[in-house]
């Protein structure tokens, strides 16, 4: 054997050879040689993985074998038997344990020298200080809501005075033989919210069809789920992972189907409809997770141009031959997250809210004559509807700092009927 396992030279020879050798597609201006110190920066950066499921397991493996040494992973889920056909870091004996913990321990055991810190909780449990420690975020999520939250958090964290506040976000998603990878440089390139219309909302059937004229097995299952459950409340609350609850719904749906002579209600279909199960396989996760990590490696090392500033989205279709579409998704000007970044607003902390409102009308960059104002948790003043206006009117008399408890750098959102499609965000700068 050539080198000891402590010596990374032999172990990382394939990766480092490519990193040290310039290729024809590296930017021409980037002419400095890659020194051993520069090779080492990869090991010194800290990267965050969101999700330790189908994509997450693959992402952890791929990052560990891409030379990342400090990895954190967040997942609040526990391991279910139906994960085992693709979440390859888990075994049958792990069912019921924390995904983040089992996955982190497995990859640490397998790949020497990598440190993976698991967080068995929700992403919302952490604040910006926590997220500030990472250089990059790779998401392998199955929920739109979590993606939107992470995206908004990373966009909002960008601070003009702090270069480290800009964290590239790489996001993967799969469904059956299909999937997509996208790269977001928060505030610079289109964000997840800009692309929200790429998610088709789940097709729904009219309630009245469920209630009176069911025709499909799915109609009977939805009826059991939405109507019968609520009328009969067989258990205190519906747990979609409890087989007893699913069995109850299945039997309800089955007897309704028999009543209307509708064929096709099965346990598996019941489970699929109620839990909105999306088919998932190992190979698709492998493709999308590896694509995400390939972009992460390219961004972290500049070894080759990455997605982001030109093309920023790759969609993959594997059911009919193989087809990829790699394109540039455009930024949405009126994006609720990155469309209007907050601007500084100079205010005297001793002003009343009324004075702030008046100043918005005369402020050259705002010119908002009928503003309504909120912070993230407090309605300061809403002009419409009437009931809300009455309730918030007393706030107009209060002073900003003493009366309303506003602090320096507090963000406020302002809307105005003159600009129905826009909202303006400011952060307070006390004079």
């Amino acid at each position, binding site marked *: 054997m050539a080198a000891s396992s402590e010596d990374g030279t032999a172990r990382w020879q394939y990766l480092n050879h490519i990193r040290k050798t310039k290729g024809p597609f590296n930017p021409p201006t980037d002419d400095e040689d890659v020194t051993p110190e520069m090779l080492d920066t990869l090991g010194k950066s800290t990267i965050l993985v969101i999700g330790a499921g189908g994509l997450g397991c693959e992402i952890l493996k791929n990052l560990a074998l891409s030379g990342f040494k400090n990895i954190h992973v967040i997942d609040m889920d526990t391991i279910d038997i139906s994960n085992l056909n693709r979440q390859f870091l888990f075994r049958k004996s792990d069912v019921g344990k924390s995904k983040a913990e089992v996955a982190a321990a497995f990859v640490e055991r397998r790949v020497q020298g990598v440190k993976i810190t698991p967080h068995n909780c929700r992403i919302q449990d952490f604040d910006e200080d926590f997220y500030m420690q990472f250089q990059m975020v790779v998401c392998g999520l199955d929920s739109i809501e979590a993606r939107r939250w992470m995206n908004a958090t990373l966009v909002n964290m960008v601070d*003009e005075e702090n270069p480290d506040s800009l964290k590239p976000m790489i996001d993967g998603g799969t469904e059956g033989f299909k999937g997509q990878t996208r790269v977001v440089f928060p505030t610079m390139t289109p964000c997840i919210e800009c692309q929200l219309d790429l998610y088709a909302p789940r097709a729904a059937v009219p309630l009245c069809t469920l209630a009176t004229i069911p025709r499909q097995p799915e109609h009977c299952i939805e009826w059991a789920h939405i109507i019968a459950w609520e009328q009969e409340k067989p258990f205190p609350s519906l747990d979609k992972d409890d087989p007893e609850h699913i069995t109850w719904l299945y039997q309800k749906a089955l007897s309704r189907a028999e009543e209307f002579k509708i064929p096709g209600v099965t346990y598996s279909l019941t489970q699929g409809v109620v839990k909105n199960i999306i088919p998932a396989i190992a190979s698709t996760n492998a493709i999308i997770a590896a694509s995400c990590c390939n972009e992460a490696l390219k961004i972290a090392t500049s070894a080759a141009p990455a997605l982001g500033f030109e093309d920023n989205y790759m969609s993959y279709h594997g059911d009919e031959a193989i087809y990829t579409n790699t394109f540039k998704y455009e930024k949405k000007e009126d994006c609720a997250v990155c469309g209007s970044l907050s601007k500084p607003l100079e205010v005297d902390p001793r002003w009343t809210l009324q004075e702030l409102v008046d100043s918005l009308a005369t402020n050259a960059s705002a010119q908002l004559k009928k503003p309504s104002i909120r912070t993230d948790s407090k309605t300061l003043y809403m002009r419409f509807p009437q009931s809300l206006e009455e309730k918030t009117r007393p706030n107009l008399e209060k002073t900003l700092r003493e009366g309303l408890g506003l602090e320096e750098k507090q963000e406020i959102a302002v809307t105005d009927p003159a600009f129905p499609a826009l909202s303006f965000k400011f952060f307070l700068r006390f004079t």
Partner: protein
Amino acid sequence: MLKIWSMKKEQQKKDNDEAAAGGKKKKVTAAQLRVQKGTNSALSPDLNELSLGSTMTTEFPDPDNILEFILTITPDEGQYTGGKFTFSFNMSPSYPHEPPKVRCQQKIYHPNIDLEGKVCLNILREDWKPVLNLNAVIVGLQFLFLEPNASDPLNKEAADDLRQSRDNFRRNVKNSMAGGSIRGVQYDRVLLK
């Protein structure tokens, strides 16, 4: 690491972007922003004059949470005149990707509202689109009191009554609004006076 920051500075120079944000506090979520904008346009006085008239009011139990409110409808036309109906509105953090959840808070006799208060209105479910706003939903609810729809009901008995005899249906509506029973189901009293 890719030299992202210098690229950002260059991009800003190009866009002459004075947008700036320094170490900020917690942010306003996308859903809240949409509702804030939505309430502005949906309930602005000009629209009040146009379509909402004086038959509707809103109430925010917690003014700091604009994602939950109560809408009161007091129809001044149609069979439900003289009644007062309240609906709870609830917008999840996924709004407007998902429609608002709307429930009638009284047990009422109406072909398109079931005894639990669920409402069959296309834009609350199958036809919801993120570009729709609360105004569309409110107009839709108002319409249900003007024109109850007998085909494809949620309350099948009420629908059958409406189809078979408008007079009978009208009597049942009056009776139910006064807190009476129809076929063994007792309805909530919703009369204004």
